[in-house]
Structure formats: structure tokens, C-alpha cells
């Protein structure tokens, strides 16, 4: 079995550094620092997984996951109604959608990472033991699938454990667990509270006193944490709905952390700030790679009026998956629990809806995100969304899973523009655009692409991004690529790409001259027109094939600005940072220098 796949990140960084950093004199070491994952808990902007945007959340709807509506609320009846094979298949597809990989194996290999060999990697899976047999809790089929994936990677079943350190969940799950029976959850017996997790360890929190935690999470002995939560309303202390009216992945960790003095209590943690604090804690988001790598909300059946200890009262037929719990929760609550159509049989009480309006946004702001950041990617199981093959940002304009904006050329050799990627005709490039982002919010390369800029909210590859329909450079482009680069509707400063038939004259770019560009989405070579567009970055270019990512101008290079800048550096969905901006700017400067000294061939 392969050991830790995390070196992929390093490979990516090497590529990025070679393509751009070298030109601007930044060392790879700095990039390592730039993208190093925290070992000390949450820091705003930190990527949980460098290859997956924190903000990306997948929701699959499939009525076939339940063979019928369970006749009653019992755990057994409910689980018997689940079609484990369909759930497994959907989880595979969701992983592919999340990681933007074309095979499930690739996707899971991107999601799960360990610094240890898989055979010695330890995994904890949070479940929920609250209430009685009729309480809604995560279905066994979800754990089975995740365990199958982990075992497939090389994790030993004995090194996987389900737990709830507050309420003992063993009586519910143990009948479904076996170390050897592949028809069951291949894991150790469910931890009786923290007994299977090294016991309890005291932790000091700012917002709660006398708190303990499962010791092996606190010490880092557990390498991977998978958080699976049932989709339930929570009426909060005193019925005040003070936790955003929901108990999902974040609230699930009241049970990873518990009161130290009283068994089966987490009273002291029942306040919103404590909820946020424990979800930033190193036990959850520390580690290299980050410990909590996957968050799943089991919304096959949901609790609307029934509280956290109650039975399910709605059939919602959905699974939700992401890497970052606050955004997974925010989107699950807003799109499922608070959706009166989905929850029609027993909706959340009005007081809960009212409270959620002010509390749920704090799920985002407390972690440095804005309401416009989360990306809810929902689909019907029967028609999953297209996944971009990697690397094609170029000609076909797809942006590619990895592609786009790449170091070299259109679409980029290496990828990363990826998931999001620039270049795509539309979404292909991805909604989010990594490359984009990277180039970033700030960066020049980045800015160049997309309406809002690569980097911008929608980024490369995004609907409107580079290569996108409306292309980079977007209308509001103001960035390095040229204050103006844009050309509006179509094409854009965008180098080239996009398509357009279009075009108005690029306003702005330094040399932006043109008109009538042909199209090319995805940064493919501009097919049309000799005059094709000016490029984004500064509107320099001209008639060159460009790449996705955008902007670019000269022939071979890619988008986002300078050769490989922006996009390539930025990569998949990584949040933009000032380093990214510097890098992209550096690349642009380097490019300009190259042109000044006659080194640049701007022809196609």
C-alpha cells in the first residue's frame, strides 16, 4: 500500500515553484511555509486539504438510498431500510465530486492522508450515542463504506474505531461491526465513551470550564478523524435554539469533548463560543495533515420538530459531504433543515428558524468566511455533475480537474487550476477555481481571470471565469492584468480565451487592442482572430493562444498571468493569500522583464 499521499502537495509545490517562484526569486521553502498545514488548530484561511476547497460541499439526493420509508423510528428498523450498496456508490460519487477526480480511488486517495504508513494509521469516526433506540443517529452503511475505503487504502480494521465519548454508542453499532466480516463495518468495537480512545484527558478551553477530551485525539495518536452526524434540529439550552437550531458536524463534537466531572454530560460546553472553540481545537483541526479530514451529514432522515434526542420525523434522502465542518453545517442547515419543502412533514419550529437567521452566519464569520463563500454543489444521483478530467484546460477548455492555468500552457501541465480550474468553459473549470483563487484574490494572475477575478469569488474556471463564457478579465477587472483588462462580455482581458465571439474592445489593457476574438474557451488557443484579444494581465498580449486561467497572452503560457502564475501556483482551491499574490505579481513582473529584454516570444 502506498504510504502517505501527501507528497502530492509537495510535488505540486515543486511544480509551482519551478514555474513561477524561480522567476521571481522566491524559494520553495517559503512556499512550504505558505502552504504548510497547521499542527495547532484552526487559523483563518487554512486549507483542511490543499487539494480541496474548504468551501466546497457536495449534496447527493437519491430516494433509492432507502428501500422504503422505515415503519418506525427504531435504530434497527431504520438501518434495515437503508440500501448500503446505493449509499456506498453515492459516497464514491460524492468523493469524486468533492475532490474533482474521475475515479473513486483517486478521490478517496485525495481526501484521506496520513503522515504514517497506512498500516499504522489510526482513524476515529465520530458517531452519536445520545438518546435511546428511537433517536436519529448516523446509519451504519455510511461507516461501513468509509471503513471499506480506509481498509482499501491499507488501514488496519483494528486501528479504526467509532466513538462518542459522552454517550456510549456501542449498543447501537457493535452489532454492525466486525474486524473480519466484510459485510459489516470493519473496525474495532465501538469505544465505550473514551475507553477505546485512551481514556479522557483534561483540556483547557477559554469558553468552557472543566472539560475532558478523548485522550488519543488530544495527543495526536489518532491520525484521521471522520465526523459523521445525523441531520437534526437542536433547540438549545432552554429551548432558545442557541446553536443555530441544528446539531450537525460541529455540535457532534460535544461528545468528543465532554464535562470532566460528570459522566455523560457536556453541559459546560453548551454555548456557541465553546462550540466554535472546540471546532478550532488542535485535537480536531491540528495535525499534519489536518486530523478531521471528512465531514458527512447523514440526511437520509432528518429531525425537524424532534430535538437532538428524538426520532427522525422527515425523509430527506440526502447525504452531504465536505472537508470543513462549519461550512458543511451552514449549508446543510440552510439547504435542508431550514428548507420547509424538504422538511414539510415536521418542520423546524418557527423560533428555531428565527434564531438560525442570526446564529448560522456566525458559523462562517467565526472562521473567517463570508456568506458568499460557501459552495453548495447539489445533484441528483441519477445525473451527477461532470467532473473535469485533469489537465485539459487547454484546447478543450475544460479547465480540468487539475488543469488550467497550469505552468505551461493552456490548461497547464500540472494542474491545479484544477478543481476549479480555470479555463473551463463554464463550470468545468469548476465552480471554484483554484487556480484562480490562487492567483488569487490578490494576485495579478488571478485577477485576470474571471469576473471577479481569479482569485475572485468565482474564479477561474468558474462560471464566468476565464475561459469561461464571459471570460476572464471580467468586467470588473481591475487588477494587474490591467486595470481594465476586460472586455467585457466576452472575452476578456482574458486573454484570450473565452470565448467569445466577441468582443468589445478591451478596455484597458496596455495593449489591448482588439476586437473580434474568437473564442476559445478554456484558454484554448484563441481560435479566432488574429487580433484576438488583449490579454488580461495588463492586456498585453495579442493574438496568442492563451490558456485558461486566463489572462495570458503569449502563446505558450497559461493563464492567470505570467507563465503559470496565478493558477499554477495557487492551485486547487487554495485560498488566496498574500503570498499567492506576491507570487503572481512576481510572475507578472518577471514576464514583463522578459519582454523588456527581448526574451519573450509573444507570438503564437
Amino acid at each position, binding site marked *: 500500500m502506498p504510504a502517505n499521499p501527501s507528497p502530492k502537495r509537495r510535488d505540486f509545490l515543486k511544480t509551482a515553484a519551478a514555474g513561477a517562484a524561480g522567476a521571481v526569486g522566491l524559494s520553495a521553502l517559503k512556499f512550504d511555509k505558505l502552504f504548510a498545514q497547521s499542527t495547532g488548530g484552526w487559523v483563518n484561511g487554512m486549507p483542511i486539504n490543499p487539494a480541496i476547497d474548504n468551501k466546497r460541499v457536495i449534496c447527493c439526493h437519491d430516494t433509492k438510498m432507502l428501500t422504503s420509508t422505515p415503519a418506525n423510528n427504531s435504530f434497527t428498523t431504520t438501518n434495515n431500510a437503508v440500501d448500503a450498496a446505493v449509499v456506498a456508490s453515492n459516497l464514491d460519487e460524492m468523493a469524486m465530486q468533492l475532490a474533482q477526480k474521475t475515479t473513486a480511488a483517486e478521490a478517496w486517495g485525495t481526501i484521506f492522508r496520513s503522515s504514517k504508513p497506512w498500516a499504522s494509521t489510526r482513524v476515529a469516526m465520530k458517531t452519536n450515542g445520545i438518546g435511546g*433506540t*428511537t433517536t436519529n443517529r448516523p446509519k451504519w452503511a455510511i461507516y461501513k463504506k468509509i471503513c471499506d475505503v480506509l481498509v482499501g487504502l491499507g488501514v488496519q480494521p483494528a486501528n479504526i474505531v467509532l466513538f462518542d465519548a459522552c454517550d456510549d454508542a456501542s449498543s447501537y453499532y457493535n452489532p454492525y461491526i466486525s474486524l473480519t466480516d466484510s459485510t459489516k463495518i470493519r473496525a474495532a468495537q465501538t469505544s465505550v465513551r473514551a475507553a477505546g480512545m485512551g481514556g479522557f484527558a483534561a483540556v483547557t478551553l477559554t469558553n468552557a470550564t472543566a472539560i475532558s477530551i478523548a485522550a488519543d485525539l488530544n495527543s495526536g495518536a489518532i491520525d484521521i478523524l471522520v465526523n459523521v452526524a445525523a441531520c437534526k434540529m437542536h433547540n438549545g439550552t432552554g429551548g432558545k435554539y442557541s446553536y443555530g437550531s441544528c446539531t450537525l458536524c460541529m455540535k457532534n463534537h*460535544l461528545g468528543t469533548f465532554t464535562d470532566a466531572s460528570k459522566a455523560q454530560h457536556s453541559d459546560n460546553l453548551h454555548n456557541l463560543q465553546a462550540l466554535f472553540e472546540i471546532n478550532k481545537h488542535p485535537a480536531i483541526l491540528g495535525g499534519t495533515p489536518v486530523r478531521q479530514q471528512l465531514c458527512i451529514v447523514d440526511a437520509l432522515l432528518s429531525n425537524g420538530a424532534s430535538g437532538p434526542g428524538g426520532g427522525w420525523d422527515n425523509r430527506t434522502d440526502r447525504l452531504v459531504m465536505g472537508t470543513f465542518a462549519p461550512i458543511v453545517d451552514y449549508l446543510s442547515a440552510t439547504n435542508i433543515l431550514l428548507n420547509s419543502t424538504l422538511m414539510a412533514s415536521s418542520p423546524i419550529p418557527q423560533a428555531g428558524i428565527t434564531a438560525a437567521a442570526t446564529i448560522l452566519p456566525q458559523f462562517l464569520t467565526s472562521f473567517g468566511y463570508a456568506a458568499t463563500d460557501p459552495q453548495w454543489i447539489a445533484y441528483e444521483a441519477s445525473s451527477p455533475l461532470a467532473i473535469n478530467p485533469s489537465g485539459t484546460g487547454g484546447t478543450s477548455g475544460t479547465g480540468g480537474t487539475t488543469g488550467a492555468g497550469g505552468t505551461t500552457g493552456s490548461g497547464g501541465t500540472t494542474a491545479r487550476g484544477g478543481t476549479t480550474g480555470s479555463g473551463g468553459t463554464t463550470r468545468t473549470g469548476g465552480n471554484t477555481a483554484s487556480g484562480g483563487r490562487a492567483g488569487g484574490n490578490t494576485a495579478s494572475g488571478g485577477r485576470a481571470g474571471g469576473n471577479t477575478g481569479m482569485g475572485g469569488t468565482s474564479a477561474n474556471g468558474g462560471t464566468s471565469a476565464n475561459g469561461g463564457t464571459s471570460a476572464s478579465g471580467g468586467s470588473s477587472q481591475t487588477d494587474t492584468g490591467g486595470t481594465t483588462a476586460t472586455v467585457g462580455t466576452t472575452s476578456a482581458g482574458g486573454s484570450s480565451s473565452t470565448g467569445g465571439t466577441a468582443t468589445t474592445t478591451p478596455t484597458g489593457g496596455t495593449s489591448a487592442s482588439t476586437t473580434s476574438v474568437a473564442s476559445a474557451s478554456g484558454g484554448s488557443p484563441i481560435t479566432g482572430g488574429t487580433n484576438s484579444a488583449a490579454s488580461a494581465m495588463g492586456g498585453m498580449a495579442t493574438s496568442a493562444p492563451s490558456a485558461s486561467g486566463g489572462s495570458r497572452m503569449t502563446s505558450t503560457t497559461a493563464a492567470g498571468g505570467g507563465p503559470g502564475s496565478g493558477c499554477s501556483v495557487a492551485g486547487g482551491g487554495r485560498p488566496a493569500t498574500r503570498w499567492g499574490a506576491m507570487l503572481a505579481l512576481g510572475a507578472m513582473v518577471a514576464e514583463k522583464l522578459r519582454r523588456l529584454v527581448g526574451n519573450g516570444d509573444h507570438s503564437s
Partner: protein
Amino acid sequence: MGIGTTRARLTVLSLLIGFNGLACGSSPSSAPLTADAFGAQYKFADNEISGWTQDPSDPYSTYTGEEYVQKVDGAAGAYTEKGCRVTMYQSLVGPDPDLCTVLAMDFVTDTQANTMFTWKKQDQNATIVIPPYDASVAIASSTLTGMNVIAHFKASYFELALSGFGAQTGQCTACPVAVQFLDMLKSKTK
């Protein structure tokens, strides 16, 4: 009359008070019952309602005050902050696939029990009337498999979660069973 006799009378008096407390359970004037005694007052024996027996996979349990947190975590606050002193939890299995979980809570005073009922009724937007009970005494809301019932008798407050009956959108198929449980709970409330 000797001291021994006096002691004996006091002992008898104490026992009577204690017994009275046990009998009255939720009377505000009686000595408060322990959680176990309160639970015993309301616990359903097997087939006390024909066809309904204790769920072997979901143990009967009682809780004192905020210890109910052990059962429902943060949701306990909705009850304890309104005066819940002790709680009994029982899960019963009826004719397949029917299930009923019973929560009985001592709110010490009739007023507090009524306050709890009123809050919950409004919070859950409960509108299913369960004849012959008046909506001010017992009411329910539909779920996909049955209904959640809330009720109060004197200082005791109750919740029943009935599942196995299907959604109660048209005819209330769970109502007859709910009435059986409510009648029994009412009779157990002295």
C-alpha cells in the same frame, strides 16, 4: 405516654407522609419524590396496556433534575429551566411495528407543568387534537411515522413519541393508542 410511643407515632407519621408523598407524587404540598419513586409511579408494566411491553434494547431509566442531560444532552435545558425536577424515560414495543417512548416529568407545580406544555405546544406548532382530551391538556404533532404527543396532568408533564403508524395527515390512526396511554398516565397521577 412514653417517649417510645411518641417516637413510634412520629415514625408512623413520617411513614404516612412519605407514603402520601409517594401516592401524590406531583402534589406541590407533598415531599418531593425521588427520581426512582417518581418513575415507579408512572412506569408501565408489560401488558398494562395490552400488547405493549418494555423495549429490551432501550432500558427504562430515571433522572434527577439536570441529569436528564445524560439522555438528551443539551435538549434537557428546555425542561430543566422550566422547573423539571425528575424524569422517567420508558420505551415500549407494541404490535409490530408500533413503538412508544414515554417521558414523564415532575414539574413540582401545576403552573410549571402547564407552562412547559404551553411552550412546547407553541414551539412544535402542535395542532392534532386527541379526543376526548381538550387541546389545553393534550395535543400532538405529526411525524412521518406517527406523532409526538404532549400532555400535562397536575404537576406532571408528559411526552409520548408514537411511531409505526405512518404520518397523521388524514385520519389520526395513532390517536386511539395515544388515548390509551394518556388515560393510564392520568390515572397514575394522583
